[in-house]
């Protein structure tokens, strides 16, 4: 058996024998995706809607028909103009649509209960889109790419950005540092194996593990979460592989800095998890941040990756729209990998 293969085999044995960690690593992405996709959802279902109609026309009948048949709405009936306020106040309805044909120009009005702002915004957008389809009265709102404002979509790139850093950077750095702690790294270094064989032998199993997780995530995204499958999936895969390589290099870099497993965990936690959650645009849009934080967010790899994934997976745009992101990620990968290998060799 070649030396390289035996090193990989040993690493795979470490992974498989640590059954609890392996299970956690495989289940975490699935649970996160389902949790963010369904449970923690900013999507609004069953908006209870009432209508006030001063004059029935084919058009109002058509719109009301649409509200009744739409799964996102529960049509609660036609009411008098005076009752709307009472119904909203009592919580019997979430929104009201008022069709006003009294005088030209015709203006329709949407009244919405905004005690929950997220819900108000989302249901307004729904109602507008329904009205828009059938009314010649112009309303300008247009929700592109994600017409139902499904939140599951939006979280997929963010979760992918987080998972691969978690698995690649944290697990590789901890695994290398634990060999330093236990002294086995010394045994490898006094042996005739070259340092780069040790490093590659460490990285390959985690790369393969990441590929399994990528498959899991993509299958879930394209089936259960219902992201439309298109030609861009190919770009999603190879850009993710690039991002995985970057995350592995970061893990390697941490392992050259940290002396103990605890410090490796802390360094990866502070350096990666917090910036990813806060600065990558995963939860808080980068565009809404103060300029200083926007600049700071540029050094967070996840920001570029998540942005590329949104464009490719949700907007389904071709590759030329993510060239900036791809070049930034490639540049970061080369720089980090070069630095990590240099530091690893220098230390030994």
């Amino acid at each position, binding site marked *: 058996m070649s030396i390289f293969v035996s090193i990989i085999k040993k690493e795979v044995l470490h992974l498989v024998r640590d059954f609890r960690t392996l299970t956690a690593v495989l289940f975490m992405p699935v649970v996160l995706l389902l949790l963010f996709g369904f449970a923690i959802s900013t999507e609004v279902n069953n908006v209870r809607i009432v209508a006030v109609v001063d004059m029935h026309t084919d058009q109002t009948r058509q719109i009301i028909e649409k509200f009744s048949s739409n799964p996102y709405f529960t049509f609660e009936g036609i009411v008098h103009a005076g009752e709307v306020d009472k119904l909203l106040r009592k919580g019997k309805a979430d929104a009201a649509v008022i069709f006003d044909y009294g005088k030209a120009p015709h203006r329709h009005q949407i009244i919405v209960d905004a005690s929950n702002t997220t819900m108000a915004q989302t249901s307004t957008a729904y109602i507008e889109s329904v009205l828009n389809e059938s009314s010649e009265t112009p309303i300008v709102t247009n929700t592109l790419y994600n017409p139902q404002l499904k939140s599951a979509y939006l979280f997929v790139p963010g979760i992918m950005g987080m998972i691969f850093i978690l698995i690649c950077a944290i697990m590789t750095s901890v695994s290398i540092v634990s060999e330093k702690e236990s002294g086995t790294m010394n045994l490898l270094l*006094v042996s005739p194996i070259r340092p780069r064989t040790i490093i590659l032998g460490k990285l390959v199993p985690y790369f393969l593990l990441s590929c399994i997780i990528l498959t899991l995530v993509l299958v879930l995204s394209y089936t259960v979460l219902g992201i439309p499958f298109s030609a861009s999936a190919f770009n999603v895969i190879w850009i993710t592989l690039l991002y995985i390589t970057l995350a592995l290099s970061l893990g390697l870099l941490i392992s050259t800095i940290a002396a103990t497993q605890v410090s490796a965990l802390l360094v990866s936690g502070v350096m990666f998890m917090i910036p990813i959650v806060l600065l990558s645009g995963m939860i808080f849009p980068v565009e809404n941040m103060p300029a200083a934080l926007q600049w700071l967010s540029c050094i967070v790899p996840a920001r570029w990756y998540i942005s590329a994934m949104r464009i490719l997976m949700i907007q389904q745009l071709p590759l030329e729209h993510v060239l900036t992101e791809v070049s930034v990620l490639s540049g970061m990968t080369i720089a980090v990998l070069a630095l990590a290998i240099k530091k690893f060799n220098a230390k030994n």
Partner: protein
Amino acid sequence: MKEKEPIISVCNLTKKFGNFTAVDNITFEVGKGEIFGFLGANGAGKTTAIRMLCGLSFPTSGSGTVAGYDIMSQAEEIKRHIGYMSQKFSLYQDLTVWENLKLFSTIYGMTDREIKIKADMVFTTLGMADMRNALVKEIPLGWKQKLAFAAATMHSPDVVFLDEPTGGVDPATRRRFWEMIYQASSQGMTIFVTTHYLDEAEYCHRVSIMVDGHIRALDSPAMLKKQYHAATMDEVFRIIAQGAQRTD
């Protein structure tokens, strides 16, 4: 032992870290098949010296050869011809006895056939055939140390470096460990061993004592005891090391 050709030969070896001279101008030779005790208090520079001999770090100045290869220019060749067992017990705890032996033998370039023959021999001589498929973390410390020694000598290296190999085990186990060392030595392997147990120093053919980066004494235990008018190596060590400036 001195009349035999030297397997380790070191001349004016020095290692500096900034202003700190860890190893200061040491010169010695170790003969083939010799059991060479490398003693010194903590911080005396033993580990730094061993790292240079194993090709893990380069000397600031001076020269030396190990197993016929130059420590400056042929570090990779040296690594092929030595075995190493470190002070902390270190094999892979979550691999089995057999997987550990196989891994390290493969790393040292043995073929699968050679490994099988050699491993069967090791299992029989150590009487651990029934532990073949046990995870290393599940076997007692004494056995682990024998196993680590076996792993370090499977590929029949010219020199074995043992860095405090018997830390933390009881006297009976230490004795059995030294029997293994003698056996390896009788097969022609050179043993370069550091230890804190001075009764073990008595088992060595020759002993060097390092103080503050220098080698202060180098001779057989009998000659050293005579020279310092001491009854045991322990006394010899205390006389020599009492002036040490560097301690941990």
